[in-house]
């Protein structure tokens, strides 16, 4: 278990601009290793933006500018010797809409391994083991072990989303970022993904963005409430929901806006 009170992610005075629009304002948070932390807040408050900072995908837009610092597992990810490839291996992301690649289930899971190893270093048996391990970890192995050649895009949405999580695992990520991973799923699918998160908790640090208050309460250890690009409150989930310190937090969790 990794639950040792260390911080997996630390941001210091993080600000981010899309052109002239400031989407993150002086965000300083600490995310504990091995825990599930949820990011909540009304639509447009910058949750996705913050999440995407952690593996530096925002930089793919050239009109994005950031200031401040982000440390992941003690390393400043803006240091010049940080390789984006290595960073993204360690910090995986699950998107709002499941985005399996248009190849087989098997190839989806081993995609990361193939990308990061020389062709002849990969033995079929190792790949098979990796696939079984990753799919077992997300609870898909029983359902899919006879359909590994099936096209991933033909699976049910819930299975696709689990597959997208499984796809990260062979790379042994430290942090898994989830951006409203259940918003395309029905109640059953949502429950399944949440159970999955509990399974993964401890081995991975998970940051999940959610619109769903009850999901945040059920699933996370700590919660961060954001409003208009700022962090308003960061506390243990039960404290944040039962005794919010900031009146704006209270308004939000009582459903008065957004």
């Amino acid at each position: 278990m990794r639950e040792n009170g260390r911080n997996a992610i630390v941001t210091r005075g993080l600000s981010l601009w899309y052109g002239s629009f400031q989407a993150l304002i002086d965000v300083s948070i600490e995310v504990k290793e091995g825990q599930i932390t949820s990011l909540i807040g009304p639509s447009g408050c910058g949750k996705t933006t913050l999440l995407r900072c952690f593996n530096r995908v925002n930089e793919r837009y050239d009109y994005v500018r950031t200031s401040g610092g982000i440390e992941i597992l003690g390393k400043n990810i803006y240091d010049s010797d940080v390789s984006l490839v290595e960073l993204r291996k360690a910090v995986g992301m699950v998107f709002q809409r499941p985005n399996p690649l248009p190849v087989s289930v098997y190839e989806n899971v081993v995609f990361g391994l193939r990308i990061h190893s020389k062709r002849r270093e990969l033995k079929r048996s190792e790949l098979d083991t990796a696939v079984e391990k990753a799919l077992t970890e997300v609870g898909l192995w029983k359902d899919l072990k006879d359909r590994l050649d099936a096209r991933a895009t033909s699976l049910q949405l819930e299975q696709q989303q689990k597959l997208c999580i499984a796809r990260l695992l062979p790379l042994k990520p430290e942090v898994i970022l989830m951006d409203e991973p259940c918003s395309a799923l029905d109640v059953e699918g949502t429950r399944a993904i949440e159970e999955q998160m509990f399974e993964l908790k401890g081995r991975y640090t998970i940051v999940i963005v959610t619109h769903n208050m009850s999901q945040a309460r059920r699933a996370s250890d700590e919660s961060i409430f954001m409003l208009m690009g700022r962090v308003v409150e960061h506390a243990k989930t039960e404290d944040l929901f039962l005794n919010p310190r900031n009146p704006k937090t209270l308004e939000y969790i009582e459903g008065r806006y957004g």
Partner: protein
Amino acid sequence: MESVTPPSERFTRTHQVARRERAQTVAKWVFGAMSLAMVLPLVAIIVYLLYKAWPSLGWEFLADIPRKGMREGGIWSAFVGTLYLVGLSLAISAPIGVLAAIYLNEYARESWLNRLINMAVINLAGVPSIVHALFGLGAFVYGARFGFSILSASLTLAIMTLPVIIASTREALSAVPRAFRDACANVGATRWQTIRAVVLPNSISGILTGIILQVSRAAGETAPVMFTGAVFFKAVSRGDLFPYRLGDQCMALSMHLYTVSTQVPNVKESIPYATAVVLLGSVLLVNASAIVLRIWLRGRKKW
């Protein structure tokens, strides 16, 4: 006071609805007639050509060389010449065009240079072929001293088809969903790995179709080759597959059609028509194969 509608009269047509439905029926027939009116001339052209060309048509016409001052014989020399020109020009423009499109679509960042290139591509695609012809004459025949040759003509055709290939390739590339690229970046794939593993396999049918459609364009254009490397007549032997070298001038179907229709007196009437049939037939064959290829690749497409 509004009166209550009795149940039997609910949901029946009012006058207004009936009028709208009539308008809709008229529209349907008018538009249908227009699309028929578009197909008819095409069919008429083909039937008329075949009818006029009939006496000359046959394998012999394709395989034989022009004889008796082009008043008899076949069109082999022109047919092979066109194969050379089209093949060579696409061998030049397709790789350059596809690679440039990949760069522009996948690597280039938004900048004034990128926008400038974009504008250039779009505008170049609209330049009339006679202008390309003149450019080819100045740039390749005289400027680069390639002379009147297959090389000059092919380069000219390549310049002409390049912008269209870039544009169609970019279109095919941008049709690949963003989500696939995100998925790749997210497991630490480089752009090049993403392109190879996901972007190209999913856009190849569109890319190839775009290229193949330029075959028909390159084969049909007359001015660019006439200015730069095609000649009225060139003696080659019957059925010879490799009659020309790069520095030679050659005959070409489009040019030959022009010659036998307007420049040579007393040509057998069916010969120009048969030449047109071969040109049109080759182009249609190539386009049809593009469609088949597209369907086949789509069937294997992975999403």
